[in-house]
């Protein structure tokens, strides 16, 4: 296994050091510009189009295999699927009947309080591309990009609940950072009592945690966590996960709460991008005092701390927002 056959061993590689330094400086410059300023967005968007064929080429054999397997399923399997889906649909429709009325009522109440926190306007569905971006970060590439109006920070859901948010947008694709990424945080609320806090990723797809709850906080195993809509990034009221374990160490001041995500972070192939309704409120004509609601987005996630409030949840007045430890908000990478 004598490897190198090239006989060109004259030893001179003209200006190796110079070129090495030059390229390194260029790369360093890129890193700094990309990190500090937002100037590279457009360049990156163009570059991502160039990268697209490679990504397609890698992903397509797997998608092709899926397609092949799907196309050779038997008629019986299809029929079984169909009956199952039909019954599921019927069930979902039953639930929806009440939901419509509730939704209208909730909107009217929100209108009364000049709060539009997290009313969703529309959805777009995207498919997860079969690629591993980085072994140490929880991210996926989705086949919807700037072309479809996707923007950075946009909320992404799957059938079970909140999936994550958009971290980077290319022309044709976008990168979604999962709830479970160690650098991700999302403002949540315990559905049972309205207790607000922040859920932070762990780097493990099956687990997120609530690190900012005092040991005396009222959480029990099985509690459902929903988005609180604070911070304006996520629509309110979507399931985030259920509390799986609460560890209370009497010596510590904060409890250690593990949450099982509601979304199938490791399996979902279809994701929904959500557009929130712009701050202009009230489809209902309700309010007597037609206050020109100063589209104040609720106080940022600083408000999402551990005081056990009554569900006065997302009042639009930042006045009462308690100041304490500003947790990492949203996607804190850029």
């Amino acid at each position: 296994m004598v490897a190198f056959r090239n006989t060109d061993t004259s030893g001179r590689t003209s200006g190796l050091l110079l070129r090495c330094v030059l390229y390194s400086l260029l790369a360093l410059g890129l890193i700094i510009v990309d990190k500090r300023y937002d100037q590279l967005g457009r360049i990156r968007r163009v570059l991502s189009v160039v990268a697209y064929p490679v990504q397609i080429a890698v992903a397509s054999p797997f998608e092709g295999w899926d397609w092949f397997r799907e196309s050779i399923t038997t008629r019986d399997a299809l029929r079984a699927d169909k009956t199952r889906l039909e019954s599921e649909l019927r069930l979902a429709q039953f639930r929806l009947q009440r939901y419509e009325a509730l939704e209208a009522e909730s909107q009217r109440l929100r209108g009364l309080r000049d709060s539009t926190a997290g009313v969703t306007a529309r959805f777009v569905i995207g498919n997860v591309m079969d690629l591993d971006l980085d072994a140490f970060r929880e991210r996926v590439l989705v086949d919807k990009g700037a072309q479809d109006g996707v923007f950075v920070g946009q909320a992404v859901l799957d059938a079970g609940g909140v999936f994550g948010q958009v971290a980077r947008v290319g022309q044709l694709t976008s990168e979604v950072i999962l709830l479970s990424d160690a650098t991700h945080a999302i403002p949540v609320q315990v559905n049972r009592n309205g207790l607000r806090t922040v859920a932070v990723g762990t780097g493990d797809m099956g687990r997120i945690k609530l690190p900012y709850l005092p040991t005396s906080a009222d959480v029990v195993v099985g509690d459902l966590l929903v988005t609180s809509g604070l911070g304006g990034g996520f629509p309110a009221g979507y399931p985030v996960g259920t509390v799986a374990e609460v560890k209370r160490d009497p010596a510590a001041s904060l409890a250690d709460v593990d949450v099982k995500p509601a979304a199938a972070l490791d399996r979902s192939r279809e994701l929904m991008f959500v557009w929130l309704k712009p701050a202009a409120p009230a489809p209902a004509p309700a309010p007597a005092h037609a206050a020109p609601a100063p589209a104040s987005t609720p106080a940022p996630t600083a408000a999402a701390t551990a005081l056990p409030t009554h569900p006065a949840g997302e009042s639009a007045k930042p006045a009462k927002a308690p100041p304490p430890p500003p947790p990492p908000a949203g996607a804190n990478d850029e």
Partner: protein
Amino acid sequence: MMRETRIRRLPMALSALVALALAVLPLPTALEMLRPDFLVLVVLYWSIESPRAGGLTLAFVAGLALDVIQGVVLGQHALALTLIAGWATHLRLRLRVFSILSQSLTIFALLTGYQFILFWVDGATGNPVTTFGRWLAPVIGALLWPVLVGTLSRLHER
């Protein structure tokens, strides 16, 4: 010599492209940690084999491509690959006469250096990756080196 350079460019670009694809090929989660840095190995091979055909440029461009595909800070892999390729080019005359075992050990050192630069940039840009798994890739890469050299040298003999 011109002729030689021109001939080399094609297998160079092709192997880099394949390595790029391998870098994002979906793997089961358990194996994901063990994925070697294919692109680095390929770039190292070419900087040792024929540095004049543009080893450093290849390193820079390939690194940039990896940055775009993986969606990390632009320039991170480009920086690491350039430095490592420069180092390898500097060492190449010695590397050629090494036994394959010593070559693998040197490659291990180079790959560790590469990971270290990535680690440093990650930390400096505020996305630290602290899991130990990161340091497994150089080991796998060094083990893979003889195979890769065998394959690539056969490939461009044609």
